[in-house]
């Protein structure tokens, strides 16, 4: 039951379960993500948010359930997972930039060696994507020469370079100093304006309130409640959601 005007379905998750031995990290998740939607996943640590995100491109193998990406079953046997992953960009909490490559090298690696683009073509595209995240000047800098905010923006450019149809972001600002968070959020806001579909795990509640289309609250491997940010933040119906939001505000 999407509450915003539903665009085309990009991600369609049904009964997603992930177990690590006896521990159930995800207990039957149903979730839809629509085209050009910015969906926030919130919830206490250990609630399964990251696991859910990582199941989408099968960095984690789901135990049960289906994930359809534009109608294609991600978990099907014989699916070309590399090809699917190119269409789903991922951004990590700890950036995971390649330390031995420049910013441009980071952005162009997959263009050159997954898409087999010639260096000149990949470099031109890479520079354009770095410019898009405000780092046109930093193409030749190595990750250790960049601030955390700049590194995360390079990581976003790396994901964007493959022209993905959705961006999966796993706490993109959690590892950043407070004064650097804004630069990354600015890029996310611009991507939203450009119509990028995004599924973001984050604790940036103020940003969620202002910029996202829908919020889903996870607790103990279940989606407890989902809805537009105004409703979740002002009038959550589930006690668990309210308790979580109160704890956050008390910080």
């Amino acid at each position, binding site marked *: 039951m999407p509450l915003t005007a539903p665009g085309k379905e990009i991600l369609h998750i049904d009964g997603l379960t992930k177990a690590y031995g006896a521990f159930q990290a995800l207990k039957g998740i149903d979730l839809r993500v629509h085209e050009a939607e910015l969906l926030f996943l919130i919830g206490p640590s250990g609630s399964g948010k990251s696991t859910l995100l990582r199941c989408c*491109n099968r960095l984690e193998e789901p135990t049960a359930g289906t994930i359809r990406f534009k109608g294609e079953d991600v978990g099907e046997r014989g699916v070309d997972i*590399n090809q699917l992953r190119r269409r789903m960009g*991922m951004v990590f909490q700890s950036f995971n930039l*390649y330390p031995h490559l420049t910013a441009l090298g980071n952005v162009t690696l997959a263009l050159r060696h997954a898409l087999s683009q010639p260096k000149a073509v990949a470099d031109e595209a890479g520079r354009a994507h770095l410019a898009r995240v405000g780092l046109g000047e930093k193409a030749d800098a190595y990750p250790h020469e960049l601030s955390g905010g700049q590194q995360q923006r390079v990581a976003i450019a790396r994901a964007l370079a493959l022209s993905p149809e959705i961006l999966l972001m796993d706490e993109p600002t959690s590892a950043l100093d407070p004064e650097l968070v804004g630069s990354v959020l600015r890029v996310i806001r611009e991507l939203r304006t450009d119509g990028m579909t995004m599924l973001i795990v984050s604790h940036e509640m103020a940003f969620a309130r202002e910029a996202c289309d829908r919020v889903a609250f996870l607790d103990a491997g279940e989606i407890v409640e989902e809805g537009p940010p105004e409703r979740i933040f002002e009038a959550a119906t589930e006690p668990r959601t309210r308790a979580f939001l109160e704890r956050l505000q008390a910080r």
Partner: protein
Amino acid sequence: MTAFLHNFVNPEVLQVALPLILEGMRVTLLLTASILPTGILAGLALSVLRTRQSRFLNFFIVVFADVFRAVPPLVILILIFFALPYLGVQLSGFAAAWLGLSLVLAAFSEEIFWAALTSVPRGQWEASRATGLGATATLRRVIFPQAIRLAIPPLTNRAIAIGKGTALASVIAVPEILNHATNVQAQTANPSPLTLAALAYLALFLPLVVASRWVESRFRWKR
């Protein structure tokens, strides 16, 4: 003092030994130069195979690495040279030394490369795989370039150790430095050739030690 000079720096004995030691240097150099590439490349290949995480293959790789790291190289050389002929494999002393020390170096380098490959953070694999690069491309473009920086210092140390270890081949009649030195020592009943041998090893391996420092600094992370 005169006794020392007579026994260890005896001019007449040194004169006899010099041309033989020089010839021995050639053999030592050739043997080392043959062992280093085969041993290191075999070790690299095994460590890469091991990343495929096949339980069956990994069992054999681990057994190989553990056995050849545990057994003294001298014992391995003797077994290859003296025992293999009974199984129908007759190797020259040089070939036996090359094979034995290559296997030992392969075992150590496999462990060095493996440790280096696995100490590259998991997030690097994930970032690369998430952009649709396959396992082989990820290993080659992302993991290996980082691992090699970690592997270089222990690898150069091991290479030097194996290079010096070619002295063990003297017991299986390979005419390298120590073999010639001990022969002349026996003939002249004077250990001066050993002094010359020490100088010969220094002349061969000191440059290698210095070169390894240069290689290590080249591969160090730029900070």
